[in-house]
């Protein structure tokens, strides 16, 4: 085997890369030795930083840093970072390239192919954007799988001998996914997936920020100044407080020198879990609909589930576990590492696809998360109603699948049929997503309704949709393929984007720990006052001097010293 096959979890907040080696999946550490690489990109002068250093610089240089860009995949949003423009695809590509480098460094081999995960509820456009990102990163990716499917695989790997029904709830930074699965006769059967692509830990932070702003308005009669750094620091403080409240029932939220419309304010606010959970209620309510839908699609009731699994960092919040417990009438499990489950499952899928004998006895089936169909019309009285969605492959159909439906002409002497392919659940086409357009020509001329065309959709496991149209009377067949790489970007645009990314400069891999240490220290420096601030300033200065000396040993020594100071100052920092 020339190269390795890895699995990548491209997350809203964290991304990971994992591999199956000797039958055991494991997550690969990055240049800092950490498993989670924050999905953040910072442009520092002419250099690009990805990961923890960029995450830390979001505090000190918010205008030069992009985070949570996964939420904008498939849209036209542009990010302006230090005068350079990036699309969400390009930002994701930078993260993917970083993971690829990490994997290659750790495994000492080229990455031949990768399986990348997306939220189950990502539509076709978002999936295509993800493929573009992989292309741009120089990753060979055939298979994109759903995150909860990956989590299910990670879970099924160790339970394939048992027989049970389970539900996986994945609440990450930006998305919520539900999957119902059953393991029976050694087959992991994914029965249904549903989700919300705009519901995750970040929304809980948003709710907390809103809470703070309300408090500022009512108790202090002021509002946050229009200042990116101030906002970023408040956000960070909320994020940290949210995590503390996962373990404690009360905490204090403090931000010193917060710029407000009445000048700098030392903001301090006691928070209780109970009070916040009231604010979270609307978000918790939104989790019900996807759960109900996945259960319904799977033909199950809540009480059937023998196990409920929580994955995704945000399920660490106690209110999520209690919601699950209430709904399913049983305590949810956290038997999978919540941050790593998806990456592990992706690695298992990569091994499966590569024909790795260690996982050869693992068999899994997955379903189509969306309905695919074409636009049809209906004649009523003397009017014609167009844009009616006629499903061909229904959501929940086990993949790969091939289905055929017959359609007929609607007007006299009609010799052409236009096949507009849509994806979605709405009865009207305009509410669904258009994913392709074809025309069938050469239909023999005849009275309306006499000529028919059989339209066959074949949907394979890689998400490629083949459309065959056969004119019934002449048996003449037309074949079309919806190119999975065809999307908003043309080949040419992709090439241009790739060239643009290739021109970016990165810090050398071995310099990353240094850059990260400085970025973290800078971020903390802004938070501190007085003596502590001076202490950190001193350590920073010494470290910078060491960097000047270019003596690797001295640099390593002073970096450890600086990290020790960071730790000693007793402030937790986000990874």
């Amino acid at each position, binding site marked *: 085997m020339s190269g390795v096959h890895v699995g990548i979890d491209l997350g809203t907040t964290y991304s990971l890369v994992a591999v199956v080696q000797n039958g055991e999946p494991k997550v690969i550490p990055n240049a800092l030795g950490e498993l989670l690489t924050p999905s953040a990109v910072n442009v520092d002068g002419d250099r690009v930083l990805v990961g923890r250093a960029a995450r830390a610089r979001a505090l000190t240089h918010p205008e030069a840093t992009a985070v949570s860009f996964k939420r904008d995949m498939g849209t036209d949003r542009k990010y302006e970072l230090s005068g350079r423009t990036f699309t969400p695809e390009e930002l994701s590509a930078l993260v993917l390239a970083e993971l690829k480098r990490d994997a290659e460094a750790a495994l000492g081999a080229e990455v031949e192919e990768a399986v990348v995960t997306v939220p189950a509820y990502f539509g076709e456009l978002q999936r295509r954007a993800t493929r573009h990102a992989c292309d741009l990163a120089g990753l060979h990716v055939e298979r994109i799988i759903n995150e909860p499917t990956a989590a299910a695989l990670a879970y099924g790997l160790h339970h394939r001998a048992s027989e049970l029904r389970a539900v996986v709830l994945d609440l990450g930074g930006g998305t919520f996914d539900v999957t119902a699965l059953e393991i029976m006769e050694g087959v992991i*059967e994914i029965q249904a997936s549903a989700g919300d692509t705009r519901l995750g830990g970040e929304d809980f932070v948003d709710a907390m920020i809103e809470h703070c702003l309300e408090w500022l308005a009512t108790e202090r009669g002021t509002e946050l100044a229009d200042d990116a750094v101030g906002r970023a620091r408040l956000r960070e403080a909320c994020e940290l407080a949210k995590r503390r409240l996962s373990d404690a029932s009360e905490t204090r939220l403090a931000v010193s020198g917060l710029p407000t419309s009445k000048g700098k304010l030392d903001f301090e606010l006691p928070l209780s879990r109970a009070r916040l959970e009231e604010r979270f209620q609307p978000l918790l309510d939104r989790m019900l609909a996807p759960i109900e839908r996945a259960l*319904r699609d799977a033909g199950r009731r809540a009480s059937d589930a023998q196990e409920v699994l929580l994955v995704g960092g945000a399920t660490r919040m106690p209110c999520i576990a209690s919601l699950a417990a209430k709904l399913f009438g049983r305590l949810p499990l956290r038997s999978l590492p919540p941050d790593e489950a998806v990456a592990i499952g992706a690695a298992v899928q990569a091994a499966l696809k590569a024909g790795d004998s260690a996982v050869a006895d693992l068999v899994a089936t997955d379903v189509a998360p969306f309905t695919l169909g074409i636009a*049809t019309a209906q004649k*009523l009285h*003397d009017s014609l109603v167009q844009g009616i969605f006629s499903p061909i492959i229904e959501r929940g159909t086990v993949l790969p699948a091939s289905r055929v439906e017959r359609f007929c002409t609607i007007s006299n002497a009609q010799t052409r049929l236009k096949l507009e392919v849509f994806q979605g659940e709405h009865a009207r086409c305009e509410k669904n997503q258009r994913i392709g357009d074809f025309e069938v020509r050469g239909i023999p001329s005849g009275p309306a309704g006499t000529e028919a065309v059989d339209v066959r959709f074949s949907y394979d496991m890689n998400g490629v949709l083949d459309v065959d149209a056969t004119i019934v009377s002449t048996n003449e067949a037309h074949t079309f393929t919806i190119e999975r790489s065809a999307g908003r970007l043309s080949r040419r645009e992709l090439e241009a984007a790739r060239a643009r990314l290739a021109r970016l400069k990165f810090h050398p891999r071995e310099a990353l720990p240094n850059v990260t240490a400085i970025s973290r220290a800078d971020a903390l420096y802004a938070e501190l006052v007085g003596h502590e601030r001076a202490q950190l300033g001193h350590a920073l200065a010494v470290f910078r001097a060491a960097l000047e000396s270019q003596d690797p040993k001295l640099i390593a020594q002073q970096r450890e010293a600086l990290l020790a100071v960071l730790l000693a100052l007793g402030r937790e920092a986000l990874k």
Partner: protein
Amino acid sequence: MDSKQALAELGLEAPTSADAIRRAYLRSVRKHPPERDPEGFQRVRQAYDLLRDHPWLWGTTLEAATPISNPLPAPPPPSASPERALELSPKPAPVTITVEGKSRSALFAVRKDERAAPVPWRDIEDALQLLEDGKLAEARGLSQSLDRRMTEFGMRTREIGVHVIARWTLVAELLALEGAVSDDLIRALAAGVRSGDFDEADRLREKGGWRVRRAVAARAPSLNKALVALAGGPRFRPGFSRWSWIGVGWVVLQLARTCLGSYFETGHHSHSAQVAATANGANGQRAVADPKQESLVKAARAIDEAVQYGDCNTVREQWPFYARGVRQAGFAWSRDNYAERRKRALEICAELAGELSEVP
């Protein structure tokens, strides 16, 4: 693929139960994993779908059974009279495009072709047609033979196909209404199920007063829910003329199927009710702390609507939250409305007299 080939594909001689078929399917999937043998897997799946959706074939000996052809490989030719129940015009009129933009040519329009439906579906549709025609006795006969066929083998919902079950249940509910409401209402309801247009049924039911509303709610709960859903549904949204909705009757029919489906699909009432109850539980709890009384108002509104539609289940569900909210609030206005609301609720749910807890 016919039933015999399907059994062979799954390595079965003769199936005995749904569970046996499912296990045989999964064992075959292990032999033909989708990852390595997509064609083989699709054959296995096709066989499984065929056997699962036509369970009345199981008990019969294979020779006696009419092999059912799976629609996949060879779809039947278009039916001779492709007119649908929903096409309102009796004679075909020339096509002139009058709706939705002139940019699209009629040449590009396609129409979904109706294909011959599988057996139980046909029978159920026939039963509905008989009901709509007012031939209740015949409908009952057909339904009973259908019931026998379908229950003989101890089948569960999942194996028959959810939409079939949903419609089957509707037929049973319609038959249960016989004698309790006028035959006209039964016919109108059957017509509503077939076309998605419940206007006439709604009118007749309103005319019959609360006794009729209660009878429908008690004996035909899912029909009642469809009625409620459709009457409150998009047909009456401003901006949509009634006519345009009848025009897209097909869409409304889908809507009816979806909303019926959502009550029926597989786990059905109990599951939906469970999720709803959890949500309501949260609401109920919040009613206590909620200074604006939002959930109290919500519960009150839900009760009023349910009373209007004779839906005693919802009344029963919502009442405790409402009563608790009133007790907490103790507002003078809610006390006034309380007495009135209680009277109406009791009128609809006469049998609930003991269950509607009093506010002290």
